[in-house]
């Protein structure tokens, strides 16, 4: 991923509406993001564009992520 794209993604992870997501996504950027394949990184970009509540429900396990495209990344974030 190019620097500019990464920095845009970083901003969209570290400035959320919900503190829970600020912390969770910042942590994943620092600990797990680099291990993703380029394709998985693009899926993460899509996740980071989701509405805060929906995303937090997935990441906190309040609702199950049943979309096969996102489920593996959601699981990886939950473990980070």
């Amino acid at each position, binding site marked *: 991923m190019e620097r500019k794209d990464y920095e845009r993604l*970083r901003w*969209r992870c570290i*400035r959320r509406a919900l503190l829970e997501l600020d912390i969770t996504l*910042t942590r994943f950027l620092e600990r797990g993001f680099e291990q993703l394949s380029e394709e998985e990184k693009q899926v993460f970009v899509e996740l980071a564009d989701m509405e*805060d509540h929906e995303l937090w429900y997935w990441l*906190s396990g309040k609702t199950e992520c049943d979309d096969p495209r996102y489920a593996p990344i959601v699981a990886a974030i939950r473990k980070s």
Partner: protein
Amino acid sequence: MSIPVLKFDAVIVGAGGAGLRSAIQLSEAGLKTAVLSKVFPTRSHTVAAQGGVAASLGNSEEDHWHWHMYDTVKGSDWLGDQDAIEFMVRKANECVVELEHYGMPFDRTDNGKIYQRPFGGHMSNFGEKPVRRSCAAADRTGHAMLHAMYQRNVKANTQFFVEWMALDLIRDSEGHVVGVTAMEMETGQVVIFHTRATIFATGGAGRIFYSSTNAFINTGDGLGMAARAGIPLEDMEFWQFHPTGVAGAGVLITEGVRGEGGILRNSSKERFMERYAPNAKDLASRDVVSRAMTTEINEGRGCGVNKDYVLLDITHLDPNTIMKRLPGIREIGLQFAGVDCIKEPLPVVPTCHYQMGGIPTHYSGRVVVPQNGDYNTIVPGFYAAGECACASVHGANRLGTNSLLDLLVFGKSAGDSAVEDLKAGKAHRELPADAAEKSLSRIAALDNRKGGANVHETRLAMQRTMQNHAGVFRFGDMLKSGVDKILEVEKAARQLEIKDKSMAWNTARTEALEMENLIEVAKATMLSAEARKESRGAHVRDDAPDTPEFPNGRNDKEWLKHTLFNPVDNSITYKPVNMQPLTVEPIALKTRSY
């Protein structure tokens, strides 16, 4: 250097509730309106508001705005201005109904009216018994509100500048505000927004504290810009804290945990609340619990390497009860403390939640400053609303659900005032020749400085200083040393260095610019808190205790006045509280007890 100039009738900085509400007034009046936001509007921190919005609709039982006014004055510990409070509570119904017409999906009663629920501090008949006054949309009131108002703005042709950061207020030689400078994050380009009206709706600055429930975005940008432009900040010593946030993260742990039997313990596992509140113990009121926690930490009985938190223990509860009655708590412990609360206690600390002070405004939303003996001289062209502003309706403490009301009423009011002023026919005033100079030199300094201070370390030093010296329970000597410490941190914050010098998407630069705003708020808070030698509302000092002469430590004779912190020379002046409502008799001073 030639800087692009964009000309608008009005620019609104911030796209949370207050910003979007004021934008509706301006755009629907046909004025060319820009809204600047660091993030997409529906990602503003208003989204996190769950509780609801207060309005005495009386849908579920009898209610009256006068009762709401009484509750708000009492909640403010009589520091709120009674004209502004009357204005707010009387506008509440109209603002809620308007929001419904914008498409806000309020919860409803069986007969189709807006459903109302009770909320702490809201009472009927002047403090007699709880009343159902809060209007909500499930647990997503703020979220639903922002979506409804964003759509309305799109319809009204408001122009959004998303992922733009406002940098500095532009004032001309006569002090009129003629716009702002702002940076487009995608390009790093600095642009001048030349306007006839500038409205700040930038939210709070809760990130000045180490433990805060606020999202990272709450860096007090509007307050920093106002301070740099010589506008004093009002009542900055008043911050609302919540007793139990996850230590190190700030994520809120609901009071329901103590309600279900959670016990607070210190480093020797002692149930310390038995000493502070022998009857209520862990169920004592928020301030009593917060004060006890702080005392334990200050006296060296905190836990962890830095002895800076206490423990909230629910390991004695049946795991099934935890999962059933406290859904989400286990996940919060696992995610943010690395602790399974079924097996181990949770690390908790009193956590900053809401900023009562801010940019001084009249209830019309116009920014006012002291000048030539008049405390409320209007700064022409400048308006503020929401958490960044101080009208002042929350005074020394805010009632739950009055924050969403504040941003609706004063967002609208600021918008209306701007429309009124612009319709009076004032043309764009000339931009000063050095309009962008301050912003450009700040950026140049960041880009060129070598051997300066690290942004992350400086922010951490500020947050720890604020948490330890000006937290929920304050000590005279700690405040004094806190002043010295925060002025030291300020020196570092004026010498920040960033490694990344890129123009496009330089998030390190943006964070450094935010830090320059945070430090203005931190300094104002510490110095204002040190100066106020009484306890009132959320400002509670060890050396201003509850005595027969000064119940709850409040000293009306000397301290029934608003603080005005002047950022130019770090001086403090005071202005009287407005005790005269618009149409009713004043709510007379009384000891605040629930």
